[in-house]
């Protein structure tokens, strides 16, 4: 029995997740600065997001709308009236030394998200979804840890300061047993898919636009009170979410076995070692001295508008998966392959555009996946729309394109950005099916290879392949090989 399985005989885990999502709005939460990632440091700044004396915030209406849509997708109640609050603490990445956030009046409360692990649905309670501003980004130079203590100097980039940030907080989730790490991962994965479907964020964990803090505690099996929890930060991939919970469970079990109390603390996950390290110890509890932000007016979303947003929500991943199961005529293995490749949307959209499911699957897992890999982009970003793929499949089905020509057509679309029909027309990619043209080419091939022709006439049918190759070459590959073979055999009287 592994140490992990063994600990579960004695302890039961409780997990909770706090997820921060940078919204993909064009401008920041409280000013007009761009939110674009990767610009030179401190170029997307203004008096407001630098916290200059006298500057005032103005709330970004798009960010409020996105937050409400997230809340609706997570089955939350939307507040009819709520406010921003100031969270006061000193840190050099915070231009005002307070973060404009929400405290006891969040925009969205009391929702849930169902996630599927090993074929079973687990309901994760959502306590709240609120809107706040991101901080700047510190780089601590010198020193061993890359943290502020011990650094030679620190650099601050305020480009990120003020980017709208949505915080999604789950209720504590008990009763998961051995599946706690997998459920944590499945929750973040499902949340990521929902956010992507809503189009509110690019949800790139590696760029920090989706960031996860994982709370973990252990209590003895049968205990009625939960254990002391730790909060693990810096969990920047789905795999890390799972590893962080598992490693924290193992660490806490070791301490509890030794009779050591768990300290409530912030810990940092290390991708390199796969374990957690203590964060800066807090000698005293932080008092953020929250109070309602007097520089902003309260938010009072009109219920009719909220209802309109609810009605206009796109099909969410769970519903889509259910539809994929019923509508896509694919084997369970194929469904899984499509899902794992992250192309379910693309396959479904291709089917919606009229293609058979099997063909759509083959293209998105085959040639198109290769092209995406070769270009190091997601299939969705390849530049070939599902409707174009459906058109391609139709052209193959009606014999206009051969498989080889179809691949050339995709190459043409990728090179020119033109649509499928234009590429096929401009490059003359249609299969040559005119029998006069093919008969003429066949006769030329026979005349040019009299000895091969004689062998075929003599009954050595496989030799016809040489002649087929000659015809295909003459027609630049645009003929259907089977048709050519048939014509050749007829002309040689060997059919």
């Amino acid at each position, binding site marked *: 029995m592994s140490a992990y399985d063994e600990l579960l005989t004695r302890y039961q885990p409780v997990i909770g997740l706090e997820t921060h999502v940078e919204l993909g709005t064009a401008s920041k939460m409280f000013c007009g600065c761009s939110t674009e990632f990767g610009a030179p440091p401190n170029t997307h700044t203004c*008096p407001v997001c*630098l*916290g*200059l*004396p*006298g*500057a*005032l*915030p*103005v*709330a970004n209406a798009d960010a409020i709308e996105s937050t409400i849509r997230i809340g609706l997708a997570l089955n939350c109640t939307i507040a009819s009236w709520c406010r921003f609050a*100031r969270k*006061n603490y*000193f840190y*050099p990445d915070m*231009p*005002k*030394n*307070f973060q404009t956030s929400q405290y006891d009046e969040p925009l969205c409360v009391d929702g849930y998200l169902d996630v599927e692990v090993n074929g079973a649905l687990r309901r994760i309670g959502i306590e709240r979804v609120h809107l706040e501003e991101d901080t700047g980004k510190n780089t601590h130079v010198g020193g061993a840890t890359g943290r*502020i*203590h011990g650094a030679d100097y*620190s650099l*601050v980039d305020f480009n990120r300061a003020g980017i709208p940030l949505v915080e999604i907080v789950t209720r504590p989730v008990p009763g998961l047993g051995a599946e706690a790490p997998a459920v944590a991962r499945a929750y973040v994965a499902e949340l990521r898919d929902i956010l992507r479907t809503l189009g509110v964020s690019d949800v790139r964990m590696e760029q920090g636009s989706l960031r996860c803090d994982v709370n973990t505690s252990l209590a003895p099996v049968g205990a009625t009170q939960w254990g002391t929890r730790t909060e693990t930060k810096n969990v920047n991939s789905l795999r890390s979410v799972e590893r962080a919970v598992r490693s924290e469970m193992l660490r806490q079990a070791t301490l509890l076995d030794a009779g050591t109390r768990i300290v409530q603390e912030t810990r940092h996950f290390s991708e390199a070692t796969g374990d957690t390290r203590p964060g800066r110890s807090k000698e005293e509890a932080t*008092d953020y*001295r*929250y*109070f309602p932000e*007097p*520089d*902003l*007016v309260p938010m009072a979303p009109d219920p009719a508008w909220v209802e309109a947003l609810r009605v206009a929500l796109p099909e969410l991943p769970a519903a889509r998966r259910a539809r994929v199961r019923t509508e896509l005529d694919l084997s369970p293995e194929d469904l899984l392959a499509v899902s794992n490749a992250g192309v379910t949307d693309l396959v479904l959209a291709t089917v919606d555009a009229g293609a058979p499911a099997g063909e759509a699957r083959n293209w998105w897992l085959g040639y198109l996946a290769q092209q995406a890999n070769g270009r190091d982009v997601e299939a969705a970003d390849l530049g070939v729309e599902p409707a174009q793929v459906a058109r391609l499949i139709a052209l193959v089905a009606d014999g206009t394109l051969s498989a080889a020509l179809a691949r050339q057509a995709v190459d043409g679309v990728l090179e020119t950005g033109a649509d499928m029909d234009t590429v096929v027309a401009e490059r003359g990619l249609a299969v040559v099916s005119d029998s006069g043209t093919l008969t003429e080419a066949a006769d030329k091939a026979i005349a040019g290879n009299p000895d091969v022709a004689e062998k075929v006439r003599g009954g050595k049918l496989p030799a016809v392949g040489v002649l087929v190759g000659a015809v295909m070459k003459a027609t630049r590959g645009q003929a259907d090989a089977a048709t050519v073979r048939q014509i050749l055999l007829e002309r040689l009287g060997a059919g």
Partner: protein
Amino acid sequence: MTSGLREATGALTDLDAAAVAAAIADGQASAVEVTQAHLDRIAAIDGQLRAFLHVDAEGALAAAAAVDERHRAGEPLGPLAGVPLAMKDVVVTEGVPTTAGSKILQGWVPPYDATISARIKAAGVVMLGKTNMDEFAMGSSTENSAYFATRNPWDLDRIPGGSSGGSSAAVAAFEAPLAIGTDTGGSIRQPAAVTGIVGHKPTYGAVSRYGLIAFSSSLDQAGPLGRTVLDTALLHQVIAGHDPLDSTSIPQPGPDVVAAAREGARADLRGLRVGVVRELGGEGYQSGVLAAFDAAVEVLRGLGADVIEVSCPHFEYALAAYYLIAPSECSSNLARFDAVRYGLRVGDDGTRSLEEVMSATRKAGFGAEVKRRIMIGTYALSSGYYEAYYGQAQKVRTLIAGDFTSAFTRCDVLVSPTSPFVAFRVGERVADPMAMYVNDLCTLPASLAGTPAISVPCGLAADGSGDPTRLPVGLQVMAPALADDRCYRVAAAFEAARPEPTLPEPTLPEAAR
């Protein structure tokens, strides 16, 4: 000691703003001449008065020249084009040093303009410089400036009020016909009252706060000071109006206060219901102040107003509520002064941690009153105390607003003295914060309710100490939210009707004659 700083000189500096604008528009004087005359007066007397922290002669003359250029080109000029103005140093001005009266911002040159700065520029108003103030607008005497105390032109031994004391002194001493002040608990009205000029605190949200260095965000409001009600209204009209950069700015046009001032000047208040607030008077008020106020009420009655007494029972809690709300908000607003991005930095010698440098900077950069309020506010917002202090104070605020609402069902405006005292002596109250805080007793209710209030001179009184110097007293006129025009109408009517000579020039010492 009385002074000669209010002496009329027969020069361009004697003109009020409306007259200056008319002289420029008629070609009788250029904006450059007017500006130079005021710069000369500043050069001559500000060594004694100390109203300015920074004089921007170059910028002022360039702005004036631009107005003259536009005038020569036949372009239409606004009603205050070419008129000089003194700007309180809490208002951010692009390219012109801005300190809010604090060492922690010494040397900071803002890269942007406050909305009011931009509107003043667009109107062709000429900013002469930045005026002294209590540090971060915390005070009632301008003695809390980190740089120096400003003197009252009526008596150089006395304070000019505060926190907008540099602005009030500059206007009262003819260094500028107009000034911008800010009012959080009375910081426009009380300085106007004790220097014998007009000052208006607009309805909260009527004037943009974008670019005002925040003291207490839910209370701060910028407003105009002038020597006449009409001048004050003209400046109000330039700076007021919705600003998309301030979420708390009122998204609708304000009333025409200039028209209201002109209407008021006809000195007819028949049918107007005036409420005298019972709680703003009596014990603790100087007898000379009360006498001047009573006489002013009789003037209003004489203009046809129906005067009644009203009770606002929660006003007595205004001081306590204010001194929780304002410090709480300031403790957060002033957190940004941390030595990281701008302003003072102390102790950054490579041996100290970030926290140590932040602490050393804030210790050296903030004065005693600012530290006192940051500490009070930090405490009041602390976990476990929030409801008892900040939460309770906000409830009191609602009750005070309710008192106003109730009173305004019975009357159109409320009146009171602007301050319980005339100008006191420099140093007289600095040792006792409570003695300083009670300056704001009459002005705090309108601040907490967000309603407009104006102070207009209503006579002179001695301070009762035996010193015979007669000093200005202010009449405060309070109106419902958005009804700033009522303040101006009543103030203008009073101004037109008050007995002459209402504001005699103070006796000049021999040396100044």
